[in-house]
């Protein structure tokens, strides 16, 4: 898989509904500077910049990398802009890693952001190309039927989604960067919130956040500080309109997981992966992805969630950071998953650190659950 690559710096902004105090450039720079400080480096030490975000309509700036080059110290260097829908944060990390693994650069800065307060994301997601059907319902409206189908197939009881919503939000209380920090969050509070898209209640959905995340990636000779070694990387895509596509457990997700596990030498993900940061924007995607990612057999995901196995103190913690349910600057959400996985194996996750985490999964998905990006990072070199 090419040369070794490590995460040597992670930087995040606080995630919040509106960052009125900074421009888009100020937002991304904040995350980038923190990642560089973590790595003990400056912009001068960076060879190339890779930036990712979700659709440009979210802020109303076309191809914003041109405008952001100055703020990210990219002038005089190569800069690239990745866009793979909701999975883009993950893909951005993978393109950055690829530049190191391919032997092209020694130190790459990857940054992903969304400043959703500049626009209206649900509107931007609801416009459509001519001649295509538009549901005008945002992401929740698109995914709700797939969740209902999951419930029908597996017989999962209705309270599973609320368990995930409570668990992730309790974890978020331990993460100083998390957007939704709700004291006293419990099942009753989630159940008392309005039904948005049956079966998804208000508190079972992700927020709209402003925020940015950055990482510094390095080749083996260029490592500074505490590295998280990249053990495997994979992307997979499938068409949105293919008849017969299983939208409950997409083949692209299964193939992507199989590829990244093969590279990392993982045969039993539940046992071998100490902590997973998985893209769960609607609570029910935890049990669905538990199955899709091979943490359990088909139909068993909701039972794993119900047993408490995915809690911070469970045997296979998922989204110790609070996950997408607690912070969702869309374009950055995938990169946050990848970065939090790196923080865990570096032992730098603070209050939401999983004790002794040596191997972690970062996962992102996008589009109509058709784009996937994943990586496995570890404390040791592979």
């Amino acid at each position, binding site marked *: *898989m*090419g040369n070794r690559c490590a995460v040597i710096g992670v930087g995040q902004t606080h995630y919040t509904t509106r960052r009125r105090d900074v421009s*888009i*450039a100020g937002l991304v720079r904040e995350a980038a500077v923190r990642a560089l400080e973590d790595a003990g480096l400056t912009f001068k030490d960076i060879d190339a910049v890779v930036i990712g975000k979700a*659709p*440009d309509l*979210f*802020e*109303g*700036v*076309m*191809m914003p*990398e*041109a*405008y*952001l*080059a*100055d703020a990210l110290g*990219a*002038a*005089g260097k*190569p800069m*690239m*802009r*990745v*866009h*793979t*829908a909701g999975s883009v944060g993950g*893909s951005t990390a*993978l*393109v950055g890693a*690829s*530049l190191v*693994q*391919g*032997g092209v650069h020694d130190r790459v800065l990857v940054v992903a952001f969304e400043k959703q307060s*500049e626009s209206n994301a649900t509107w*931007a*997601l609801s*416009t*459509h*190309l*001519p*001649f295509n059907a538009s549901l005008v319902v945002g992401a929740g409206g698109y995914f709700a039927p797939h969740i209902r189908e999951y419930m029908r197939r597996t017989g999962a009881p209705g309270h599973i989604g609320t368990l995930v919503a409570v668990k992730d939000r309790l974890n978020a209380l331990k993460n100083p960067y998390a957007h939704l920090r709700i004291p006293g969050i419990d099942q009753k509070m989630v159940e008392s919130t309005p039904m948005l898209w049956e079966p998804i209640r208000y508190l079972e959905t992700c927020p709209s956040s402003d925020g940015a995340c950055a990482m510094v990636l390095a080749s083996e000779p260029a490592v500074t500080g505490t590295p998280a070694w990249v053990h495997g990387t*994979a*992307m*997979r*895509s*499938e*068409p*949105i*309109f*293919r008849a017969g596509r299983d939208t409950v457990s*997409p*083949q692209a997700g299964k*193939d*992507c997981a199989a590829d990244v596990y093969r590279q990392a030498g993982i045969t039993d993900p539940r046992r071998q992966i100490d902590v997973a940061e998985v893209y769960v924007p609607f609570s029910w995607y935890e049990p669905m992805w538990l199955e899709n990612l091979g943490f359990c057999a088909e139909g068993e995901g909701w039972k794993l969630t119900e047993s408490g196995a995915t809690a911070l103190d469970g045997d296979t913690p998922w989204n110790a950071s609070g996950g997408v349910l607690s912070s969702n600057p869309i374009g950055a959400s995938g990169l946050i998953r990848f970065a939090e996985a790196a923080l865990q194996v570096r032992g730098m996750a603070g209050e939401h650190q999983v004790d002794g985490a040596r191997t972690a999964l970062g996962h992102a998905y996008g*589009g109509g659950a*058709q*784009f996937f990006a994943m990586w496995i990072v570890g404390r040791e070199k592979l």
Partner: protein
Amino acid sequence: MREVAIVAFAQTRHTGHDTGLSEPELILPVINEVKERTGLRRFGFTCSGSCDYLAGAPFSFVSALDALGAWPPISESHVEMDAAWALYEAWVRLQHGDLDSALVYGFGKSSLGDLRTIMTLQLDPYYLAPLGLDQLSYAGLQASALGAEREELAEIVRRSRADGRANPYALDLPDPEGDDGLVAPPVTDGAAAVVLAAGDLATRLTSSPAWISGLAHRIEPHYLGMRDLARSASAADAARAAGVGKGPVEVAELHAQFAHEEIILREALELTGDTVINPSGGPLAANPVMATGLIRIGEAAQRILDGRNHRTVAHAAGGPCLQHNLVTVLEG
């Protein structure tokens, strides 16, 4: 670096109007063409370039994926940039050594909106975009900074359009009237696809692969006041990193959307008078935004694939006033 070559290139017959084809319909024929030409049905990696703002709706690349028949699922990525950068991403991916082939494509339907105004939206949203500079205004600023002779500019346009009329894929545009130097590039719909292959696979697929001997890109500060607009420092840096000067350049395909950009780029790439510039007609004869840069690489590669040339150079640009430049050196 691992040896990687372009082994196939296809482009649409570009149009100056909306033919009613959807983006997947625009892409499908060129994908099929490069599949037929190489005999490859599956690729190790796929990467595309496009821009949502051309269609005015998010996720242009999502429906494009349907044109690929991406089943079983494929390893795939997308840059919201000209597809020349998609080719760069694919080239980097092939450097890992575990994959041997990549499909790269780009597409743009500029006819759907007002392209000149849409380009305003790529400027800094707080300070520059509110000034209302459209694509023609900032091109005018650069042409003025360069201070080229009107006749020289008009000659570049005449030559490009004449070459374009001889190119079946480009538009048939008349000679410019008078001495108007700042002739805007045509608003064009189109798509293009390229297949990359590494090492032995390249030589198995074609007898004359266009080997990528150099590939580099650089970006400059965004603010026009922070740059010497008469020069392109980033194009010069990219050209040096790609090794343009290490041998004679027979043909250069430049992503010069305005005549004055050709003059700036010729100097940045240190091209001599012997180099034939944009024999395809270049962007002044067909400019499907987000595919135009990839087409430059494809046109430069095709001359080697056809055995017409031994060493060619291709250039792609992004951002206002040539802010971002990518240079590829191809050798037979």
